[in-house]
């Protein structure tokens, strides 16, 4: 109870509530504009959070992250265009429902399901994070190296059809992560004698370029009239609650899947959403209704993608291993404030942890109430021209990249990554693995170097220690199962 009181005091007494509200409002707005991704906007806001109190900065970014996942359902349902990539499956049943004149009901189902998923996710964070952080005390260099390896392998496998591309991009990220000065010998590594590369490839300009500015090119070069005429029809603003009750098994299953997927580095909301939707269809009495406006379809999709939002924080808080690009950015906020994730964070900064829990609860409640009553107003946001937003993203991208170190070269690095990001978008090559390679690559290589140093270069150090061996076995098993399923799939097609 003391912990809860501490958290409530942190959130309401120290003004963190404003970060929650502002972050959530920005997030919902971003989510409702197709083409704007939370990763890019979080990257732009990231340097600004470095000057804030840690809890303020983290909750602001989490508000953007969580809010976008809620808001993404609005254009998915009303315009058949997902506001965020994770709302793809919501279009399957949400849009047909809106076409039948039940837009309000579909939105209500999406909000209520998202709220349920979000709350379950926060509860999972409250229960799992402290427990797993205790497990982290048993971790040495070998274990951390294997965990980082597992994370990178999961990222690749999660890209399923694009796994080869993702593997190559992980390699690119790892290479970029090694550029700069080698601290052991004070020598330059692939800097091409460029002074601006001595400190390595900076994460924030890379994220801004790959996610925000590359998307700005897409928006600016879009042809024709890109503003949408959307309207909100029907009744049933509170219908979502009754639909959720009717589909409680689907909701609970999807929430659990979302939480579990969030705990696995790299898998995230995409995997959980597809699994949940497929299972909901499989166990449904009316599977033919899926894709034509099935209530259970929206419940499965929206519950699962929001169930990831807090559980994805567990590997970050417990081990310092970010599960996706957004968590990699949050990690940098922690690092700037000398808040090292792991068991010591829980004992040394309990006010931060409890404040985070309370802030996440409040955020979900606020977004749910806001969306339930302000949908008619938010719908207007979808009418803003994409090309105008694209132009503004460049300006915000400059501010985000520049303000981290006050160097114009960072803005040019962002520009370089934006071109690469756009080429990748046009060729369907995933960009997330680059960021995770950039963050997890150095963790893996440095920890491996330390572990090998202890064992005088013997790889037995990874096989003698039970946790390291388990993680390594899971990595190998995952690769084997994935490869086997791919070969079977290919044979079946042939």
């Amino acid at each position, binding site marked *: 109870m003391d912990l809860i009181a501490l958290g409530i005091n942190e959130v309401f007494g120290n003004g963190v509530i404003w970060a929650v509200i502002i972050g959530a409002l920005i997030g919902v707005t971003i989510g409702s504009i197709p083409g704007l991704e939370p990763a890019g906007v979080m990257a732009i806001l990231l340097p600004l959070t470095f000057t804030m109190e840690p809890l303020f900065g983290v909750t602001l970014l989490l508000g953007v992250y969580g809010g976008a996942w809620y808001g993404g359902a609005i254009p998915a349902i009303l315009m058949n265009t997902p506001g965020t990539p994770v709302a793809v499956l919501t279009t399957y049943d949400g849009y047909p429902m809106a076409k039948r004149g039940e837009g309000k009901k579909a939105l209500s189902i999406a909000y209520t399901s998202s709220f349920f998923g979000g709350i379950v996710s926060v509860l999972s964070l409250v229960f799992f994070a402290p427990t797993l952080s205790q497990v982290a005390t048993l971790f040495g260099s070998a274990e951390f190296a294997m965990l980082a390896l597992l994370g990178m392998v999961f990222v690749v496998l999660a890209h399923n059809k694009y796994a080869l591309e993702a593997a190559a991009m992980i*390699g690119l990220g790892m*290479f970029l*992560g*090694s550029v700069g000065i080698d601290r052991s010998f004070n020598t*330059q590594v692939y800097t091409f004698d460029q002074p601006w590369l001595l400190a390595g490839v900076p994460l924030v300009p890379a994220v801004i370029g790959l996610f925000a500015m590359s998307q700005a090119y897409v928006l600016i*070069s879009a042809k024709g009239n890109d503003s949408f005429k959307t309207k909100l029809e029907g009744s049933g603003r509170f219908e979502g609650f009754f639909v959720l009750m009717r589909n409680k098994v689907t909701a609970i299953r999807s929430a659990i899947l979302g939480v579990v997927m969030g705990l696995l580095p790299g898998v995230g909301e995409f995997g959980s959403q597809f699994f949940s939707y497929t299972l909901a269809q499989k166990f449904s009495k009316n599977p033919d209704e899926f894709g034509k406006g099935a209530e259970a379809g929206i419940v499965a999709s929206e519950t699962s993608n929001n169930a990831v939002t807090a559980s994805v924080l567990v590997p970050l808080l417990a081990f310092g291993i970010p599960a996706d690009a957004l968590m990699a950015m949050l990690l940098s906020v922690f690092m700037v404030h000398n808040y090292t994730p792991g068991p010591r964070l829980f004992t040394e900064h309990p006010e931060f942890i409890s404040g985070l829990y309370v802030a996440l609860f409040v955020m979900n409640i606020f977004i749910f109430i806001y969306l339930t009553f302000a949908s008619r107003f938010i719908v207007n946001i979808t009418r803003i021209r994409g090309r105008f937003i694209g132009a503004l993203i460049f300006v915000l991208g400059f501010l985000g990249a520049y303000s981290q170190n006050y160097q114009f070269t960072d803005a040019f690095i962002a520009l370089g990554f934006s071109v690469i990001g756009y080429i990748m978008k046009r060729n369907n090559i995933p960009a997330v693995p680059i960021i995770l390679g950039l963050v997890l*690559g150095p963790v893996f290589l440095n920890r491996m*170097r330390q572990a090998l140093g202890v064992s005088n270069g013997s790889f037995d150090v990874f096989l003698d220690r039970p946790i390291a061996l388990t993680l390594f076995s899971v990595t190998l098993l995952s690769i084997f199962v994935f490869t086997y399923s791919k070969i079977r799939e290919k044979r079946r097609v042939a």
Partner: protein
Amino acid sequence: MEYEHRKSKLFFLVITIVSVYLIFTYQSHTLEIKRDHGWYTQPYVAPLFGLGILAFFSFIKLMLVIRPIEGEKSLLESFVESLSYYRMVVITGILFFVYVNAITILGFTLSTLLFVLSIVWLSRLMSRIWVLNTFIAVALIVLIFRVGVNIWIPDVLLYETLFSGETLWFMNKYF
């Protein structure tokens, strides 16, 4: 293999060549420290590990898509065709480059205004309403980031020729 998976042929061809080149020229990019043991501490291990993964998977991907299939455009044809898609990217990229360099000469507010207006014009959105929206958006950005958050920008050449004393300080600090 679906067309979507074959689109990246040219990308992976370039990536494979570049990564293989970087691997073979590693000695000119990193130092090899003479030691009897502890190979894993060498500065070249980490970049070569990343480059190795990049080269290996890019090569596999390339092998899977390089053989042309019936009706598919050649590498050169698809490269020429894709150039039109990158026209706007090149123009916007150059504009952004000019914009960033112009900030120390014209100041953040004026450079931003000109940059956004140029893109609005290139996007064929130049109408009274979008010009007004541009002014409002730029004003908001200046208020939030320059005045509110106080992001520091080097002193501006234009202001130094136009203003002096407190006005110059005010302009350099907020605009």
